[in-house]
């Protein structure tokens, strides 16, 4: 009889533990970011046509030219990309070289976007079927990758860059050898 009672209390204990665990997990903020597994890997070969007239296109060879840089995945139809534009400008003023990959975008739309929100890019490639985006493990716009002088990804920033992300990204860029 005593053993049964201990056993039943044990069951209650297990149930309490499970409910506690569920309650804890349910109150945790959900992490919806899918991180790239390509950090530490070399960017696979690609060659994208120019997305706008006044900037050259982007190829993987441009990313392995000895100069560490930022690769910004953006699109004119992406709302958070507008919010991050001023911070990209700050990064450029701080000496970062930024190249862009425009996802599923028409040249006239990209040109209009850059005219309104500024153009911090030295090169912009047009990725019409998200080919390059998929090849580097990016799952949305905007995203920003730090790439070292050999074309190896060293850091990924998911989502729009906010003011307090700027020093972090500059530090990561410095670590990558810029």
């Amino acid at each position: 009889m005593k053993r049964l009672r201990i056993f039943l209390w044990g069951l209650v204990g297990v149930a309490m533990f499970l409910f506690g665990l569920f309650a804890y997990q349910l109150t945790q903020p959900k992490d919806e970011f899918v991180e790239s597994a390509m950090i530490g890997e070399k960017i696979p070969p690609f060659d994208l046509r120019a997305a706008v007239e006044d900037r050259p296109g982007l190829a993987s060879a441009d990313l392995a030219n000895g100069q560490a840089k930022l690769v910004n995945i953006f699109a004119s139809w992406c709302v958070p990309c507008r919010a991050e534009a001023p911070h990209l400008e700050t990064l450029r003023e701080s000496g970062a070289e930024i190249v862009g990959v425009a996802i599923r975008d028409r040249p006239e739309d990209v040109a209009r976007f850059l005219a309104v929100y500024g153009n911090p890019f030295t090169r912009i490639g047009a990725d019409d079927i998200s080919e390059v985006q998929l090849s580097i493990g990016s799952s949305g716009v905007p995203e920003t990758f730090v790439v070292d002088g050999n074309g190896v990804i060293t850091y990924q920033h998911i989502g729009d860059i906010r003011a307090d992300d700027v020093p972090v990204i500059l530090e990561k860029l410095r670590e990558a050898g810029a």
Partner: protein
Amino acid sequence: MKHLIALLALALSTPLAAQDSLPPAPYAYNQLEDPALEEQARELMLTLRCLKCQSQSIADSDAPMAGDMRHQVRTRLAAGETPDQIRLWLIERYGDYVSYEPRVTASTWPLFVIPFVLLLIAGLIIRGRLVARGKPEGGAAG
């Protein structure tokens, strides 16, 4: 309340705004000419996660990115890659998360082993009980 409505409006408007103007990739909505390959593509696409709408497979999703992933699957199959190679190509980029097909890895092996261990323990307990029960009864009968 006003803030809540504004927030709700913002949350609801994002998917609308996040639409691009380009046509879908060639093989996003078109099947492969070879029915056998298309069957393989279909099977694979049902077990790959859409990264934009994370509870759907890329076969179920109308997100532009899912279309671009279907294009990758179909063109790679047509180019002679096997479904496993394509799955691995995606896992190398997005981690196990992108695949709905569980793999045995350093962190997942207990999931595969524990059921067998439990079954073994249950079997041992049952055997112990049967033996324990059998003995006195056998003694009584004999």
